[in-house]
């Protein structure tokens, strides 16, 4: 196994073009586990975690968007400014692994792994994030919903890297909640992200309960008919119904970590709670 540590993004892309089967390495918290476990034996590795081009972020006030470089870590996303700009993503960041994992783990790595349990992904789905991809031949941008095509399956092409992810900066409430067997260091058994967009729409995305992150169009449509934005209010009965509709949109399975029944139940509870947090009155 040979490891290339390129100094620039251009070098990384040309190395990837020369050897498209190379394994890209960012924080290593997924990739090194696979290497240590013998599940992947790459001949060549390209380490992109320290590339300055991928380590930056830009907050564009005019367009109210935030472009986050792929190698920005979850430790960074936990911090103050991100908490203000993208509270749901920042909350999700805080639930990833432990401090040592978050110091290494990157948003781009989470997106590239694209596990339905990836904690950053429900926020990206709820926010309709754009994933920016780059290769030696050029750039393209795809909506997150088109990037994630299945469990750990993406529309990334050979020779491409994730360069950045763009999300809108909304003024409304947003939050992320997850259920797992511990408060830390766990893969979520069910997760939900709720965000109120600038048109007053309630958006809800679910993790760990389907082959991809699930956007709950029916629960979102139901919320539009029952929430009172001026009073920031929703009735408890309507919140319960919101949770029930969200659970009916989940497509969970039984596996070694949980059961479909429990996951559906957890989604109903988490969705109701998030809606009540967003609309605490009434």
């Amino acid at each position, binding site marked *: 196994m040979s*490891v290339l540590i390129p100094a620039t993004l251009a070098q990384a892309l040309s190395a990837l073009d020369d050897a498209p089967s190379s394994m890209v390495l960012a924080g290593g*918290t997924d990739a*090194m*586990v696979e290497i*240590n476990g013998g599940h992947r034996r790459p001949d060549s590795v390209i*380490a992109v975690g320290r590339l300055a081009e991928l380590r930056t972020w830009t907050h564009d006030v005019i367009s109210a968007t935030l472009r986050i470089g792929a190698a920005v870590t979850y430790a960074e996303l936990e911090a103050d400014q991100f908490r203000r700009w993208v509270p749901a993503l920042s909350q999700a960041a805080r639930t990833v*692994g432990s401090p*040592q*994992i978050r110091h290494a783990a990157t948003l781009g790595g989470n997106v590239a792994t694209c596990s339905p349990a990836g904690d950053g992904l429900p926020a990206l789905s709820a926010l309709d994030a754009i994933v920016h991809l780059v290769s030696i031949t050029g750039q393209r941008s795809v909506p997150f919903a088109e990037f994630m095509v299945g469990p750990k399956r993406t529309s990334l092409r050979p020779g491409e890297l994730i360069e950045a992810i763009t999300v809108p900066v909304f003024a409304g409430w947003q939050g992320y909640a997850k259920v797992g067997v511990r*408060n830390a260091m766990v893969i979520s058994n069910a997760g939900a992200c709720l965000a109120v967009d600038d048109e007053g729409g309630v958006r809800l995305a679910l993790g760990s309960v389907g082959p991809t992150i699930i956007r709950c169009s029916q629960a979102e449509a139901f919320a539009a008919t029952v929430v009172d934005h001026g009073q920031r209010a929703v009735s408890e009965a309507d919140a319960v119904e919101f949770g029930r509709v969200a659970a009916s949109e989940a497509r969970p399975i039984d596996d070694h970590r949980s059961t479909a029944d429990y996951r559906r139940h957890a989604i109903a509870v988490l969705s109701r709670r998030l809606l009540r947090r967003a609309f605490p009155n009434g």
Partner: protein
Amino acid sequence: MREINLVINGSDVQATVADRLLLSDFIRDDQRLTGTHVGCEHGYCGSCTVLLDGASVRSCLTLAVQTDGHVIETVESLAVGADLHPIQEAFRSNHGLQCGFCTPGLLMTTLELARENRDCSRDEIRERLAGNLCRCTGYHQIVDAVQAVLRTGLSR
């Protein structure tokens, strides 16, 4: 194989390493700093925690070649001869260890926290230590030890 230059526990180190070598194995086998323990090699247990440029990381999920030009601190940086570091002294006097396997990782995680130089609630301490598993103590005395260090500070 390639040459790397880094700082380990305050000393300049130059070494020639295989690309595939883990930082944990480099520290233990090449540098003979066997205080850093290797438990799971999956990033879960936290025994291999070291500081990389001051931030706690898993040395088992890091390649030695990735530390070229960087600064590593291991548990051996703490005691001066037989003179225990305040964190080690707090773990000793609060019975924050039994078998000791997890202790190096916990000490390094605590060092990172103590450098922030602020008091923390017990809940916050537990959150910060969540990535270091201990199968002996039940954690209670470890939290006591960390709380004691945060109150008295790092000066010897």
